[in-house]
């Protein structure tokens, strides 16, 4: 597999309240293969979100670069869609209108057909004309996911997309995501605080250190899908990752 993303010596500091600079990201380097699913775990406030915002082009790094297919990414575009924790489905547009939003350069009738196709894929058939406030939290996440997928992004950046959902729906959304990704090959970067979720979905897990963050450890997840999280290997991996995060958990 060719390299899709190459992150080189990324550095970022913010001005702190007391004056002076607060270093958030320090010398982060890694590469991601095309079609790979990377999960990023790390203590809260460590700079995961900043790192992802830099990768998606929303924040300019102080140093280093993000190369996509060998070309430096400096601003956001539809080749890499960011799904944030708080969600950004437009509340004033229907599900269908939200899905059609990013479809430039198609005839209106085609836009609608494509939008409805993706609404169906994420399980929102019949809700195309609903407004976001009429949907549940899980359905809203499906809409968000569909709106991202509809533009066929090469990379999906997901920042704790399911963490606001209850455990059961979060688990179901993970399975849905895997089902969709099995058909449409995207490179995925997923931030999560849930080690189990990372083991469930990712090909490789990056463990970030506390701020200023750097990559503290990398774990391959060599298990075939569908994964059994209760297997001994999965449990051992979980304990190893938690230990990296400073949690001694039998």
């Amino acid at each position: 597999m060719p390299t899709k993303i190459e992150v080189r010596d990324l550095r970022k500091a913010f001005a702190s309240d007391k004056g002076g600079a607060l270093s958030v990201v320090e010398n982060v380097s890694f590469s991601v293969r095309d079609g790979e699913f990377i999960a990023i775990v790390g203590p809260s406030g460590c700079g995961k979100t900043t790192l992802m915002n830099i990768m998606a082009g929303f924040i300019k790094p102080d140093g280093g670069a993000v190369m996509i297919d060998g070309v430096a990414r400096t601003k956001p575009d539809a080749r890499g869609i960011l799904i944030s924790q708080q969600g950004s489905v437009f509340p004033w547009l229907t599900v269908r209108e939200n899905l059609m939003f990013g479809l430039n350069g198609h005839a209106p009738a085609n836009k609608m057909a494509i939008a409805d196709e993706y609404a169906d894929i994420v399980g929102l058939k019949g809700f195309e004309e609903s407004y976001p406030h009429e949907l549940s939290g899980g359905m809203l996440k499906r809409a968000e996911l569909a709106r991202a997928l509809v533009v066929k992004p090469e990379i999906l950046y997901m920042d704790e997309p399911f963490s606001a959902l209850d455990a059961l729906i979060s688990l179901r959304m993970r399975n849905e995501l895997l089902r969709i990704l099995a058909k449409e090959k995207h490179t995925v970067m997923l931030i999560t605080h849930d080690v189990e979720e990372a083991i469930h979905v990712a090909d490789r897990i990056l463990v970030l250190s506390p701020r200023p963050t750097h990559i503290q450890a990398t774990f391959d997840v060599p298990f075939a899908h569908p994964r059994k999280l209760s297997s001994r290997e999965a449990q051992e991996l979980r304990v190893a990752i938690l230990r990296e995060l400073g949690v001694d958990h039998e």
Partner: protein
Amino acid sequence: MNRFKETLPALAVIAALLAIWWIAVSATRSVIFPTPWGVVTGTLELLNDGTLWRHIGASLLRVGAGFLLAVCVAVPVGLWMGWVNGAYRTLNPIFQILRPISPIAWIPIAILWFGVGNASPIYLIFISSVFPMVVQTTVGVHTIEKRYLRAAENFGVSRHTLFTQVVIPAVLPQVLTGMRIGLGVAWLVVVAAEMIALHSGLGYMIMDSRNAGNRYDLVIAGMIIIGLIGLSLDGTMRLLERIKWVRWRYAH
């Protein structure tokens, strides 16, 4: 039944106030200040000779004209100021200075510019309702949540799409709030605006009732009618909150 229970305390207070009013007027044997019943008969008198409708119509026309003019100016200017930083920096100080000036202070200038006729009160209503709407619209654009603008940026949409599908729909509820405030202020100002010697309108009716024979029953009747019409204007604006373009904001 429940609704009745909810409005009961308010009705009780109104009844009590009416009673106090009635008792106070009777006790002091005032010949000028009317009893509530005097106001009722005064209102009926106005209704019967048709002058009340004429005055209401004249006031509504002026408020309608001044207010709509203000909407036409305030919404585009507010959007522009909200979206273009340079426009905000240039115009905001001017608006901040003009905004606290009472519309009453504009009366001499209104007469100078527009003479004594419909144009003067329409101008006064315009000037009083335009500022709150500009401010609300500008604030509306400034407070669009970043996550939506970022999502739009992420999809790489054109500036036109960004404006028509994100900015405008996002601020529309705020624009509506501004319009509600603006219409409220416009109605508030109509009385003062109509004190410029005109021969119609509720403001004129009130002043004329006092000047021509101390008819305080008609003065109070006029005040109450102004209050009731103001209330129903606001109610009409609230109905607009149900249209689908802004309903997302209120439906939670």
